[in-house]
C-alpha cells in the first residue's frame, strides 16, 4: 500500500493527544517571569505518574541528599526550579504519547536518545550563552515526529526499519526513501499543534539541515547535541547497532567550541544523563 503523503500524515498528527495539562502549565511558567512555586508544585502533583518519575530523580544518588525528598515542593527547593521544570517536561512527553507497537523498534532506546540529546543541548547552553531550558525542550522533542510516524503508521515504519538495516543508512534517510519526507517535518507540525514557541518548531524542522533554519536559531545546536548523544552511546547499555549523523561543517564552526569547551560539554552531558536516567524507569 502507498505510504501516506506529508499532508495525510500531518492531518493524522492533529488526532494525537495534546500535551498533558501539567506540561502546559510548566511551559507557561517558563514564559512568564512571575512564578508561584506553591501553585506550580500543586499542579505537578496532580499528575501522579509525572510526580513519581520526578521524585525518583530527586532521590537518586546523584544528588546525594541526606534525607528522602517526598514532595514536589521539597524537590523544587532542593534540586532547583529549572531542573524540576525540565524533568516535568521530560516525564510529560514520555508519558503523553501512546505506546509503540512496531517490531524492531525499541521505545526505550528512543527515549534514552531523546533524553541524551536534551542534556547535551543543555550542556551546550553554557559555553554558547543560550537559554538552557529552551534547548532542553528542543532536544527532548527533536525526534517526536518519528514517534508520531510510529504510532500512526507502524506497518510503514517497519518497512523503514528494514530499509535502514539493508542499506546500513540513517533512519531519517530510510524515512525519506519510503515516505518522501522525514520525521523533522512531522515533528514540526506536531510541535505547532502543541503550541510550542516558534524557535522550538524551527529547531525540530531543521535539526538535520541546520543551514535552512532561522539565522541564530536553535537548529544548529540541536544538530550537534543529537550527534553528541549518538557519539556517547547514550541510547544504549550495550554495543548495539548505531551510526553518527553527518554533521554540517558550517553549523559546527558557527558554534565556535574549542577543545576545552567541547570536553566540558561531553563531561557535563554524561554526568547530567546519569542523574536524569531514573526518569526512564
Amino acid at each position: 500500500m502507498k505510504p501516506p503523503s506529508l499532508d495525510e500524515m500531518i492531518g493524522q498528527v492533529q488526532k494525537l493527544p495534546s500535551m498533558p495539562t501539567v506540561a502546559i502549565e510548566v511551559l507557561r511558567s517558563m514564559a512568564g517571569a512571575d512564578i508561584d512555586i506553591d501553585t506550580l508544585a500543586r499542579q505537578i502533583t496532580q499528575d501522579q505518574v509525572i510526580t513519581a518519575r520526578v521524585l525518583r530523580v530527586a532521590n537518586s544518588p546523584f544528588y546525594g541528599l541526606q534525607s528522602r525528598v517526598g514532595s514536589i515542593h521539597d524537590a523544587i527547593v532542593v534540586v532547583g526550579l529549572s531542573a524540576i521544570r525540565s524533568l516535568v517536561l521530560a516525564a510529560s512527553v514520555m508519558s503523553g504519547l501512546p505506546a509503540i507497537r512496531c517490531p524492531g523498534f525499541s521505545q526505550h532506546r528512543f527515549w534514552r536518545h531523546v533524553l541524551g540529546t536534551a542534556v547535551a543541548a543543555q550542556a551546550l547552553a553554557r559555553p554558547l550563552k543560550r537559554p538552557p531550558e529552551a534547548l532542553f525542550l528542543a532536544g527532548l522533542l527533536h525526534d517526536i515526529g518519528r514517534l508520531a510516524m510510529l504510532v500512526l503508521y507502524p506497518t510503514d515504519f517497519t518497512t523503514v526499519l528494514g530499509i535502514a538495516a539493508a542499506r546500513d543508512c540513517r533512519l531519517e534517510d530510510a524515512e525519506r526513501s519510503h515516505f518522501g519526507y522525514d520525521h523533522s517535518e512531522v515533528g514540526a507540525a506536531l510541535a505547532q499543534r502543541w503550541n510550542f514557541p516558534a524557535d522550538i518548531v524551527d529547531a525540530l524542522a531543521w535539526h538535520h539541515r541546520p543551514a535552512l533554519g532561522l539565522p541564530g536559531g536553535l537548529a544548529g545546536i540541536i544538530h550537534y547535541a543529537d550527534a553528541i548523544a549518538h557519539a556517547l552511546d547514550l541510547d544504549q547499555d550495550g554495543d548495539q547497532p548505531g551510526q553518527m549523523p553527518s554533521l554540517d561543517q558550517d553549523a559546527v564552526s558557527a558554534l565556535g567550541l574549542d577543545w576545552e569547551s567541547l570536553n566540558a560539554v561531553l563531561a557535563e552531558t554524561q554526568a547530567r544523563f546519569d542523574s536524569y536516567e531514573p526518569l526512564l524507569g
Partner: protein
Amino acid sequence: MNTALVQPLEQTQPGAVLAAPVTDSAGTVLLPAGLSLTAAHLESLQRRGIGMLTICPQEDPEAVARQHEKIRARVMYLFRHTADEAGSQALLHAVLAFRQASGR
C-alpha cells in the same frame, strides 16, 4: 574489592581516575566520576579551590589498554560513514579521548 582513596589535590597526579564526581559548593558537577585527570584538569580544580578528590586505585595497564582498544573500535564503528567528513573531526577526536578517559 578495591576501595576509593580520598586524597588532597596536590598529591594527585595526571592519569589518576576520579571515583566520584567533583562538585562545586553549589553542587554543580565540574568533572564526572570515571574521568582520567589531565594536568589541565588539576590546574583548573586548583583555580576553583577544590581541596580533596576521590580517586580510584591504580588499574592494570594491560587491562586499560584492552579497554581503550575496545572503546576505539566502538567509536570508529559509530563514525564508520562520517569519520572523514570535516564537520565530524572535532567531535570524533574529543569523544574518543573522553570515552577512553572515562572508560565508557
